[in-house]
């Protein structure tokens, strides 16, 4: 057994950490997330072109670094440490993951664009009635000649305001919660009939409500088989789920470090508050949650290649544990900071917000415990 990183993996982490250290301090982040567009496009370009980071999980023949899920986890953890809003998750992990799985002409065409930073892809999968069920879809894609006509409403699509493309789940058949009849499409974000309502999110990113009104899409927008897309969607969402666990690990580490640092400086009753045993024990508990989040992320990541049931059980175990941990570490970071912790001015609260959103992303603690039980404890 060997949990050490390879030289390339170390290089990815160090390069990215150094770059983010130089470009992504908290004040700079606040400046651009509060700007009209909500981002600084130069960062994405630099991640692609100067660092080659958007190629981390892709094959060398597409211009990538030849990595996979572990490399994604390394990148996501570093992005978490600076609460970056860069759309690495939907573009590289999710859309990239789908393209890698499908291969062929679609992958050959799009992956180089992702690596070059010229494509930003948002993942439009959630619907208002669907909660975390990936098959619960009312969006439809009806066959129309060689292509399809798309209709429906997708909610809270992160990064959609910046996207050049959308990865969309839709029904090509079946009833609204059937496993069969689900398809995955990669489409141009600016097709006629796509209506977007953009807004900021509480964790500093941007998202949209997207309405598809008789959007004509070409036949080759379909990724994988028609009506049999759910297993592929579940696989890429599992990859995405461990990727946010990795991000959470970075976020939680910073929440913990920030709290350690603050309590050693802040004096009350004539001593640094870190001297109060009740706070010490709490910070120890936070530390244990951070370490277990890291362990579970690694476990989930390493099991992504297993057969579906084993993979899903591992990912759900990881996400459930990380969701609880993020909740505990986030809340206690704020509590231990006292009043200053609830101000917008301090970074700690913004880490807390991201940690809070991660709790529910791709399924809450309860959702994943339920999925875990269904797989592992079925009678």
């Amino acid at each position, binding site marked *: 057994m060997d949990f050490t990183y390879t030289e390339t993996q170390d290089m990815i982490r160090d390069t990215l950490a150094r770059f983010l250290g130089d470009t992504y301090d908290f004040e700079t982040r606040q400046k651009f997330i*509060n700007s009209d567009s909500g981002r600084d496009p130069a960062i994405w370009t630099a991640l692609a072109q100067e660092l080659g980071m958007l190629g981390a999980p892709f094959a060398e023949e597409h211009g990538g670094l030849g990595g996979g899920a572990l490399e994604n986890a390394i990148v996501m953890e570093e992005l978490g440490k600076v609460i970056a809003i860069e759309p690495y998750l939907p573009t590289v992990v999710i859309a990239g993951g789908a393209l890698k799985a499908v291969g062929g002409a679609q992958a050959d065409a799009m992956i180089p664009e992702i690596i070059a930073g010229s494509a930003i892809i948002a993942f439009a999968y959630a619907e208002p009635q669907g909660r975390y069920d990936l098959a619960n879809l009312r969006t439809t894609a009806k066959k129309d000649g060689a292509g399809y006509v798309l209709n429906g409403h997708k909610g*809270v699509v992160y990064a959609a305001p910046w996207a050049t493309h959308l990865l969309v789940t839709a029904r090509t058949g079946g009833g609204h919660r059937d496993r069969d009849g689900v398809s995955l499409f990669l489409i141009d974000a600016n097709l006629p009939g796509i209506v977007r309502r953009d807004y900021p999110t*509480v964790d500093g990113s941007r998202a949209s409500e997207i309405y598809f009104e008789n959007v004509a899409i070409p036949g080759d927008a379909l990724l994988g088989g028609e009506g049999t897309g759910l297993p592929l969607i579940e696989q890429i969402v599992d990859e995405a789920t461990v990727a946010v666990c990795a991000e959470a690990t970075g976020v939680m580490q910073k929440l913990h470090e920030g709290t350690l640092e603050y309590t050693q400086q802040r*004096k*009350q009753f*004539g001593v640094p508050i870190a001297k109060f045993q009740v*706070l010490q024990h709490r910070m120890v508990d936070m530390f244990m949650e951070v370490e277990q989040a890291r362990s579970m992320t690694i476990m989930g990541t390493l099991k992504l290649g297993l057969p579906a049931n084993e993979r899903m059980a591992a990912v759900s175990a990881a996400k459930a544990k990380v969701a609880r941990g993020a909740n505990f570490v986030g809340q206690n970071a704020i509590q231990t900071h006292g009043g200053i912790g609830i101000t*917008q001015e301090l970074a700690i609260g913004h880490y807390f917000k991201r940690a809070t959103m991660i709790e529910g992303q791709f399924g809450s603690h309860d959702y994943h415990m339920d999925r875990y039980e269904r797989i592992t404890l079925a009678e």
Partner: protein
Amino acid sequence: MDMEFSPEDLAFQQEVRQFIAENYPADLRDKQDEGEEMSKEDFLAWHKILYKKGWIAPAWPVEYGGTGWTPTQRFIWSEETARADCIRLMPFGLAMVGPVIYTFGTPEQKAHFLPRILSGEDWWCQGYSEPGSGSDLASLRTTAVADGDDYIVNGQKTWTTLAQHADWGFFLVRTDKEAKQQEGISFLLIDMKSPGITVRPIITLGGEHEVNEVWLEDVRVPQSQRVYEENKGWTCAKFLLAHERTGIAGVAASKRGIEKVKAIARTELDGDKPLLANAFFKRKVAELEVDLAALEFTELRSLAGPNANRGPGPESSLLKIKGSEIQQRLTELSLEAVGHYGAPYFRGFGEGDNEHPIGPDYAHRAAPTYFNMRKTTIYGGSNEIQRNIIAKMVLGL
């Protein structure tokens, strides 16, 4: 022992219910339903209606304008106002400085300030905390130096809730630097329009302007505005911190909160069923109800118990700890219930610029409220400090 309301209590409950139904302002209700931020006028609108009715200060002695209600009637009152979602009355005048003034103040102070607190003419704020003095309140450094009939006050206060609206503030200041910490503090009433006072906003995590920094530079305050003896302000401070026993637990509001969470979870879908049919979610709601019942009956025991007519004791710490934890769990359940729609930020890009809600209309306040309510275990003496109080005062450790 019994827990039934008497026929008189039930009649009182009817009277209260009817009064609220007939008098609570409809436009205020609309604003609340829309989740809009409340203005000073909004807070004062309900205050003035209650003042006219003579119901503004149920906790005060009758001679100063109280209602003379029994503890049970006061309990009914807080239940009914919470049930009807009435806007909360600002505690700083009615629940905090008012009782200090009628307990420790001079006849002149009572005659001048109490009627103005009741009528809502003066909006009060609380100037206790300082950047270096939070939990360790007695270490405060803002100084008041005697100068003829006045004090000259210098220092900085922080976390001053809604000071941007305040006409008056009650401040703890140091009048003797040589004395032991608690013994050199005085309790001053300061006109917030005095020259030398600057109020600066602090924006909190949910995006609200609720707290402020208050700077005092050579502020001249007549000594006649000191309550109680010089250097004995700590007595007033402690009295005030423990005073408001009813209401501190927030039982009635949390009961109402549970109803709201249930309403959301009946509307939100989980598969083909409402979220409230989900066994995990339902269990969390039920556990919260059980914990709330435990809090409620602990509060009722403390209201009706042998200490009922003594000043509130350290048991108020228990109510604060458990009440605030329940309030936070409620906001956590709401956020969980709204799923993806917790993420849209409901404010627009500009300051004070509200976007129309995205997603269901009960969703857009879920995340800001969750973030905002982290304060409840921090303010009013953090829950760690409350536990220290119980350890020392109740358990004798």
